[in-house]
């Protein structure tokens, strides 16, 4: 008979428990350590070697790569990544909230899951192919412009410029925003809304004073997810952008598989990206703690 344990979280107990824990946690732990933690440490070390090229000896010697990030062209690229990510997050919020609201609160109850699934279904197909589809749509001779010309309207020059990148990124990330907002809105207690209406609040007032505060954690989580994913996006700026669309991900890519081949600088940029993302999450947690009671 095994010993009776009083609670869920057991302290380190005699050998059988210890062995159990090891068997459960060791395989994944080893995998993560080898292929995630150690590589991250390696690129941290690599980032401390300025001007390294393949074949060179690695000797951490300084922060030269990090100082390089403050040069105007690199700051330009980082700024652009932030712009794309922020803009996409706002667009996804504006476009996703009504959809999530409708599915969660206003649509017939039986259809809710199906509607949500239908909205999210395009996520299941390759994101590359969907971005390629946008190329076909936004080209000077593509679907959109052919339609506009047939209606006698002037053509839109969208592809290979920032507007196309925003469209592509918003398209890729909107389902995620809707999913997270839906989860939050589903838990909304409608009695609050009814009470607000009874107390004389207009619909906009009820929205801003009841709905939004209640769903703030969902808004924050959704925005964070979209922002982080958008920050590291490679495909959309690459396929839909033009000569002024280089983002951080592409700049890092160029340091390893492109002409520049400066692995040290690429590593430094990667570390900065990781730091930026960690900062965003830390901010969420700090802000989220304030609202912990609303969950």
């Amino acid at each position: 008979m095994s010993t009776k344990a009083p609670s869920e979280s057991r302290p380190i107990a005699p050998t059988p428990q210890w062995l159990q824990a090891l068997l459960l946690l060791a395989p994944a732990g080893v995998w993560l350590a080898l292929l995630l933690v150690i590589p991250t440490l390696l690129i941290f070390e690599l980032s401390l070697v300025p001007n390294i090229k393949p074949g060179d000896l690695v000797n951490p010697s300084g922060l030269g790569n990090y100082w390089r990030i403050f040069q105007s062209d690199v700051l330009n690229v980082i700024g652009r990544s932030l712009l794309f990510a922020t803009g996409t997050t706002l667009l996804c919020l504006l476009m996703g909230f009504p959809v999530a609201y409708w599915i969660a609160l206003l649509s017939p109850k039986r259809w809710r899951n199906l509607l949500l699934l239908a909205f999210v279904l395009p996520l299941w197909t390759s994101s590359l192919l969907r971005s390629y589809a946008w190329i076909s749509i936004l080209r000077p001779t593509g679907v959109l412009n052919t339609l506009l010309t047939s209606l006698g309207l002037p053509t839109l020059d969208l592809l290979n410029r920032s507007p196309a990148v925003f469209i592509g990124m918003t398209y890729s990330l909107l389902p995620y925003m809707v999913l997270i907002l839906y989860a939050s809105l589903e838990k909304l207690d409608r009695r609050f809304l009814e009470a607000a209406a009874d107390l004389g609040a207009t619909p906009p007032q009820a929205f801003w004073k009841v709905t939004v505060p209640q769903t703030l954690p969902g808004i924050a989580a959704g925005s964070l997810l979209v922002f982080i994913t958008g920050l590291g996006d490679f495909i959309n700026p690459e396929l839909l952008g033009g000569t002024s669309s280089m983002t951080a991900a592409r700049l890092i890519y160029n340091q390893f598989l492109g002409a520049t081949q400066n692995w040290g600088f690429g590593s430094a940029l990667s570390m900065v990206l990781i730091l930026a993302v960690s900062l965003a999450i830390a901010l969420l947690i700090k802000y989220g703690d304030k609202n912990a009671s609303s969950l």
Partner: protein
Amino acid sequence: MTSMADLTRLHLSRSRRRFLQTSIAGLSGIALSSCGWTLAKVQTDQVRQGASDELHVYTWSNYVDQELIDAFRSQTGIKVISDVFDSNETMLATFQAGKARTYSIIYPSDYKVSQMVKLGYLSELDHSRLDGLQNILPRFQKSVHDSGNRFSVPVSWGTTGLIYNSEKLTEPPTDWNYLWTHKDKLTRRLTLMDDVREVIGAVLRSLGYSYNSTDPQQIKQAYEKLQELKPAITTFTTDAWRDQLLAGDLSIAMGYSADAVNVINQNPKLKYVIPTSGTSLWSDTMVIPKTAPNPDAAYAWLSFMLQPEVAARVTERLFFATPNEAAFNQLPDTLKNNVTLFPPQNLLDKAETVAPLDKSILELYEKYWTKLTSS
């Protein structure tokens, strides 16, 4: 989704982890640095033997097609799998980043060969295993980059120029400067190649300097001139302009002569022009890296491509000029006289070959290229 408790734990774990991470990094940094590990050293002494009936080829777009693969297979029984790159720099970068052990045949341009030889990546060719080398035109046999064909076998050559839609451009271009003088008409209907040496070289040439200028002032001038043109450029692309030009999305593109003949064949309204101020005369070669998993198949491929019939058929189908004299003689007259494929000597005299440059100068080129593409 995530509970606040989870995220709080995450936050705490992060601050502790950060501390641990930096300390471990510091320690490991010290430890590893004392070991002095070399970054991405291509291990030319450890060769992994690959499947004997498979040959991996790393080449330019449109150099290897299904018919060629099938012909090779029926002759030797070896299956060819080809991967594509769009610039020599990309090819070298992926080679050094770990793909070295994959390919038995690579197609670098002539000027890249000398760099790869210096880096010790290429194996010296055993001429006794290759028959047909004598058919190669003398000027390619004595190329300044690899005299005597010790490491490389030339497979194609050509020029870089402008391909334009003569229906859309009533005034045809004659030189690189056309792009600047007609910027308004061409805006958003123009692409340049995604190749630092070709683009900066072309602009240097349009300013009257050499394609391989080592003068920082001249390179800076070229960069500034490119910045002027940048708002009008749709994208930098070496291959994708072909579909776009055919579809009508573009009026003019910078491209290789081989690709030009290809698209002109599909739409006779398109024309190719070699800029009068001069252009680059390139030559692509086949090499066997030291890390090749299947050198025997590689030699079979080289011998196969040197066969005059094969080279002639390839030129007829894929439209890159062959340096193989015996193959040239087998071509139909329409191709022999095609000025785009085989330009006359007076035009060739004005062309320059891209030359390998010193590391520090190359870095200058890279720096300006990065500034151009990231601004």
